[in-house]
Every structure is written in structure tokens, then in C-alpha cells.
């Protein structure tokens, strides 16, 4: 029997109802992480065990590592609450507080984007930087400006990367025996100057289907586009994330990488596919760029934010020294979340509404509004950064110039 609302609006959507509050979103988000966690366990634990390269108990290390990240960030947050807030110095109160503060998620996400053989003390250092510095010192859940997991990741990557490499790095016990990979992840091969060729960037790891499935070297849980897509569908269906944010983000990187490939002589679709299927782009697009607190709230703002993420990821990834541009791009754009939210809200309200025409009244030409100027500024900024990133990156991968090859191949 159909149910109708009898009262006047506004109505609460299911996602806004008390039964679907922060706790429920957190639950759905954790369920969304499961396919990716399970694949990480399969690829770095079960499969390696089946290959005969690790013992039975060693098989569980990927799971233990990820759970350790979640546990550590929860403990850190709990400790912070207990020290700073007298009202939560009981188990019950603390439990209630932690249940709605996404306490485990920064640590879980951080562990998932770290190399498998990251020492636990390094993971804890990342959790401290992410949970305590980037989240709790800003006021806790809902007040943080930066994505906590990514702040932890960047803190580790910029200070202790060598320690991780010395401890074993990203390659699991099966991958470390594969000579073709030369000890590098697919994105690492790009940074090592292997050149933009299929033979150098894709072939050593199999083919693009392997990239999609995720059986390639990389950080613990970010290699499988397939698993991430399953998570994506779940999160969209549960309305935890907006469907278009990852699509715009990944799509922007795809298109810009395609242009870079054209300039550098890597024609065809293999290079843009390689670009979106390697590194942490898919993971970042689904789990990080959609984070509710540190990204814009209105839909147009989210799209603009995702566009900027795409162009900055390309810029940082291909022009910078650090192969993984996703984390840097997201954290950098977190700074601009509020202005983007404000500007796009103005643009939506002034330009998005329908014009009302009164019959017989003279048609008045609308003056160029501030909203339009803001829109143009944002569009020009995105285009300029994208253009610079593409031309700069394309020029880096070819010994020759870039204009004529690009135009020659395009037209």
C-alpha cells in the first residue's frame, strides 16, 4: 500500500532521518570498504599463500595491518576525548561519542593506501598526524578542514618514505620475485623515466585487464578498480556519496592523460586507461574526494571541486617528482572547499533559477551578474591549470617540442 505524506513540507529524506544519521552513514561507508579490504586480503595474503611464498599466519598480515590502522586511530581519538572532555570519561559516553565520529575511518583508509610492508610504528605516526593533528585539533569530526587520512599519508610519505622502502615497500612476497617489474609499481615506473610506452608501463605488469582487476603491484588496497567500482555502486546506492564526483574526477584525469599521451607519442587509449587504473586515483576518487566534511556540499561545488582535483592530480603526478598526485591534489583542494562552496552556491542561485516572464511586460536584458563572473573565473582557472599541466607533462615525456605533434595528431 502506497504511503503518502499528509503534512505540509518540507519533508525529511530518508538519509536525513534520525535512523539514517552519521552512525548509519559510517556503517554504510565501512561496508563500502569491505570489497576493497577483502581484495587486498586476497591479493596480498591468500594468493601469495597459495603461491607458496608466505606461511599460513603471514597470510593474515594485510587484514591485521588495515585493522591496526583503524584501531589506532580509534584509540587516539578516544584518548583525546578522555583527556580533553570530562563528560566522556566513562565507557558508555565514550562509546557513544566514538560511534558517530568516524573514529576508525582515518586509520583504516590510511592503512589501505600505505605499502604492505610499512612498519607499524610508521602507520601509527601517520594515524597521529591524521587523527590528532588533522582531525581532533581542528575540533573533531565535522570541523576538520583537511582529509585526516591523507594528511597522515602525506606526513608519512614526505618524512618516512625511505623507511617504508627499506622495510620492504609495496611489493608482496610473490611480486618481489617478478623480475619484469624491476621492483617498481606501475606509477613508480613512470617516475623512473621508463618513457611513455606500453612496453615500459603496462607490459611488465601484464595487461590493462590486470590493472582493472588489481593484480598489479601497488599500495595495499588501492590496486583493484573492480573492487573499488563495487564499493562505488554500494556507496551511491546508499546515498553515502554523490555518483558524479568520482566520475568527474576520474574522467578529467582520463581526458587530460589522453592529451598528454598524444603529445608524448603514446597514442591510443592505453595511456589514459593506464593513468586512471594505476596509483590511488580510483580509490581517492571514491573514498577521499567524496568525504562529506572536507569537500563542498552543493552539487555544482562538488563538480567544480572534482574538476580541480582532476587537473591538479595530472599536474602533480606528471610534472612533480612524487608519482602519486591524488593525495596532494585532494589535500590542496581541501583548502578551497569553502570558497568553492560559496561561489558555486551563488552561481547556482543566480544562474540556475528559471526566469519568469510576465505576458505583455517588456523583456529586460539581465545584466552580467557577479555570479557569471565567478563562473567564468572558475572555468578559466580550471582550463589554464589543465592546459599548463597537459603541455608541461606532455613536453616532459618527449624529447621534442609538443605543439606540432599534438595538432598533427588531433587534426
Amino acid at each position, binding site marked *: 500500500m502506497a504511503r503518502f505524506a499528509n503534512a505540509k513540507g518540507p519533508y525529511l529524506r530518508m538519509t536525513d532521518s534520525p535512523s539514517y544519521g552519521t552512525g548509519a552513514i559510517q556503517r554504510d561507508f565501512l561496508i563500502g570498504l569491505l570489497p576493497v579490504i577483502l581484495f587486498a586480503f586476497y591479493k596480498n595474503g591468500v594468493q601469495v599463500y597459495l603461491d607458496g611464498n608466505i606461511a599460513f599466519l603471514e597470510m593474515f598480515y594485510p587484514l591485521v595491518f588495515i585493522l591496526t590502522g583503524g584501531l589506532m586511530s580509534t584509540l587516539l581519538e578516544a584518548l583525546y576525548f578522555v583527556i580533553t572532555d570530562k563528560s566522556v*570519561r566513562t565507557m558508555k559516553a565514550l562509546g557513544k561519542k566514538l560511534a558517530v565520529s568516524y573514529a576508525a575511518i582515518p586509520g583504516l583508509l590510511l592503512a589501505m593506501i600505505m605499502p604492505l610492508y610499512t612498519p*607499524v610504528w610508521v602507520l601509527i605516526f601517520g594515524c597521529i598526524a591524521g587523527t590528532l593533528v588533522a582531525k581532533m585539533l581542528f575540533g573533531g569530526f565535522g570541523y576538520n578542514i583537511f582529509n585526516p587520512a591523507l594528511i597522515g599519508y602525506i606526513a608519512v610519505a614526505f618524512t618516512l618514505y625511505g623507511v617504508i622502502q627499506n622495510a620492504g615497500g609495496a611489493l608482496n612476497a610473490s611480486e618481489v620475485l617478478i*623480475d619484469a617489474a624491476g621492483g617498481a609499481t606501475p606509477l613508480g615506473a613512470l617516475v623512473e623515466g621508463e618513457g611513455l610506452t606500453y612496453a615500459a608501463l603496462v607490459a611488465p605488469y601484464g595487461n590493462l585487464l590486470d590493472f582493472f582487476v588489481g593484480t598489479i603491484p601497488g599500495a595495499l588496497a588501492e590496486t583493484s578498480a573492480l573492487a573499488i567500482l563495487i564499493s562505488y555502486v554500494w556507496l551511491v546506492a546508499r546515498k553515502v556519496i554523490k555518483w558524479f564526483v568520482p566520475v568527474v574526477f576520474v574522467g578529467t584525469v582520463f581526458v587530460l592523460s589522453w592529451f598528454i599521451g598524444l603529445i608524448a607519442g603514446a597514442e591510443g587509449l592505453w595511456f589514459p586507461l593506464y593513468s586512471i587504473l594505476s596509483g590511488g586515483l580510483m580509490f581517492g576518487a571514491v573514498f577521499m574526494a567524496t568525504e562529506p566534511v572536507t569537500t563542498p556540499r552543493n552539487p555544482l561545488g562538488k563538480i567544480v571541486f572534482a574538476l580541480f582535483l582532476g587537473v591538479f592530480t595530472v599536474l602533480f603526478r606528471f610534472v612533480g617528482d612524487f608519482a602519486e598526485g591524488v593525495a596532494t591534489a585532494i589535500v590542496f583542494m581541501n583548502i578551497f572547499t569553502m570558497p568553492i562552496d560559496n561561489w558555486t552556491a551563488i552561481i547556482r542561485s543566480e544562474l540556475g533559477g528559471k526566469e519568469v516572464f510576465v505576458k505583455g511586460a517588456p523583456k529586460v536584458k539581465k545584466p552580467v551578474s557577479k555570479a557569471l563572473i565567478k563562473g567564468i573565473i572558475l572555468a578559466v582557472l580550471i582550463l589554464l591549470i589543465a592546459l599548463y599541466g597537459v603541455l608541461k607533462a606532455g613536453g616532459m615525456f618527449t624529447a621534442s617540442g609538443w605543439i606540432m605533434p599534438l595538432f598533427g595528431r588531433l587534426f
Partner: protein
Amino acid sequence: MKNIIAKHGLAAGIVILFALVFVFGGVYSRYMTAQIEARANDGANAEWLAMYDGATRVEEFNIADIAQKAYPLADGRGDFTPSILAAYKLYATDADTAVGVIYVVESYGKFAGVQIAFAFDLATDTVVAVKVIAQAETPSYYGNLDSVFFAQFDDMPLDDIGLSVDAVAGATYSSKSFEIALLFAREQYAADFGFVIPSIVMTLNSVTYNVDPATFVAMPFIADVTYGEDDTNVVVYLDSAFEYAGLVSGVEPAADVKAAIKSFAASAGTVSANVRFIEYDDESRELVIEAVGYGSLTIRVTATLNAALDGIDTYEVDSHQSYDNEYNEGYNHTLGEVPYVEENMIDQYLADEITIDGVAGASVTSAAMQKLIALLDLFLLEIGGGD
């Protein structure tokens, strides 16, 4: 006590839990790191063992100190001083006597960073395997190093006085990197295992191009050497691979001397196999010379000599160069279509320029043309006294 527990128990519990995770997590990750290091070592060792049939154990060892040595790069691009990155002894059983040795050598091809491992058999003093550990060469050129190239290393004797590596067309720089690495690995091998590198007292007086139209195709070079205790002088023809091809004057030397001549002439750097005479027709006075330019593509110049044979009446260029591939940005559109560079440089020569300038934006083509013009000039000088 109760008060203390009630007041600080939760915080203490969290800290204890934190410490436990820290300790046990740390132990677990430390254990896993030890495991992956062992696996990585196993993997590396397996690679070394695969280079010597029957080897069951590999052990890194400290090499003897030897003097640094510079080797000329291909095409006179200067010298490179190789170094030994690692050395391993191979054992066939658990016995203490090694059966083979591996040297990983840092060499230089088109670019730096070529790392090549050579496995030598200690009983026979031969090369038993070669493996490229790392390289950053241009893929399209490096790819020309095929199985035939690598096959030449099979059982290659180290006591060959003219130890050298036959280059592959289209990958001459990369080929040279193998020769440099092999020669230096042999030096190290000699120092580590008492191997005596064969040598011969020899002075290379000159190595020049053969300008005799009757023989210059098959025997493009002439070497003049003095060797032995009694300063025996011999002038010989060499083929394009610097192998002995015939006698000009003196007594035909023994095989070890021929090998030494090859080694000396190839490393002299004064002549290049990348430029050569193709043919000369006495009646029409047409001389054809070919040079290898950018991308291993050829430039062929057909010059018609004047009646006095001391200059050129006309010339034609058949070039496969592509300046666009080299420096693009519409090079052709600003300076002219191929063979603009080739004709520009020949015109400089015909205008009696003392120095033939290259053309900016086409340095590889220009270098090839400079060699080609020098050869043309040499021919005119010999045949007609031209200047």
C-alpha cells in the same frame, strides 16, 4: 586506589591497549619485513644462479682494488669510466671452491645507467652468461639488440687479445656499452683471479678511410700498425667491422695480431663505420657516399666530379632524415623541407668554407653530414689533388 582507577582507569586502559598494539604490531611487521627481505634475497640469488648452469649457491664477495679506466664511447662522444656495482662467486656444491663469478658493471650506452651482469667460468675463462640489470636507453634502438647479438657472448673467450662486441646496426651506442662493461669486467676478473689479459706490444700509427674505388666498398679502412719486439710494420685493409680484410704492405700478421689491430682500430675513434663510399664510376665521374644520420636512417649523396677531379660540378641528395621527428616544432616549415640541412652543408663546402657549420635543430643529421663531407673531401684530395 579506587578513586585513581575510576578517574584515570579509562585513559590508562587506552594507553595500555595502544602500547600493546604498538608492541605486538611492531613485532609482527618486523617479522614480515624480515620475511620479505629473505624472499627478495632468494629472488635475486635465483637470478644469479640462473646465469650459471649447475650453480647452487651464490655469495657476494669483495673485489680487489684496480685502477679506474676510461673507455671511448661510440662515435667519439668522449670517454666513460665504468665501475663494478657488485660481484658474486658461484658454487656448484657446498664446496669452498667457486666455479664461476658474476660482475655487475655500470656502463654507458646512449645514456648513463646501463647495468650489465657478466658471468664468467673460472675453469675456462669464458663468458657463460650476460644479463641486463637496468638500462634507460631509447627503447626503439635498444630493441634492436636481438638474440643474435646476445648469442655472441656464449662461451666468448676472455683470452681473446682483441676482445670486442660486434655492434648491431641501429643500436651502436647500446652495443658499445656491452663492450665497455665486458672489457672492464675482464680487468676486474684478472685482478681477482690472477687471470692474465693477453696483450701485444703495438702502436697504431694511423687508421684512415680507404679511398681506392676498386676496394673501398669491401675494405673501407686502412690501418698502419707497428708491433712486436722488433717493431714490425704492417699496413692492412679492414672491413666495416674492423676485421682484418687484406694486406696493403708488409707480411700478413698472425691471428692474435689481427685481433689486436681490430681492437686498436675500433677504439681509436678516428674513422666511423657510419659513413662509407658506395661506388665511383670513372666514366661519369659519379661518386656515391652514404652516411647514417638520425634514427639510423641514411643520407646518400651522389656527387659528379669535375673534369679535373678536384671539385664537384653537381650533386644530388637522397635523404631519409626527418627533422620533425628530431626536433619538431615545425622545423621543416621554418628552415625548409628535407634535404635542406644536407644541401645547406654541401653548399658551404662548395663555397670553400673552412669549417662546415651544422644546422641548429638538426644536430644528428649535421654530424652525419660533416663526416660525409670530410670523406668526400678526402676522396677529392686523393684522386685529383683537390682542396
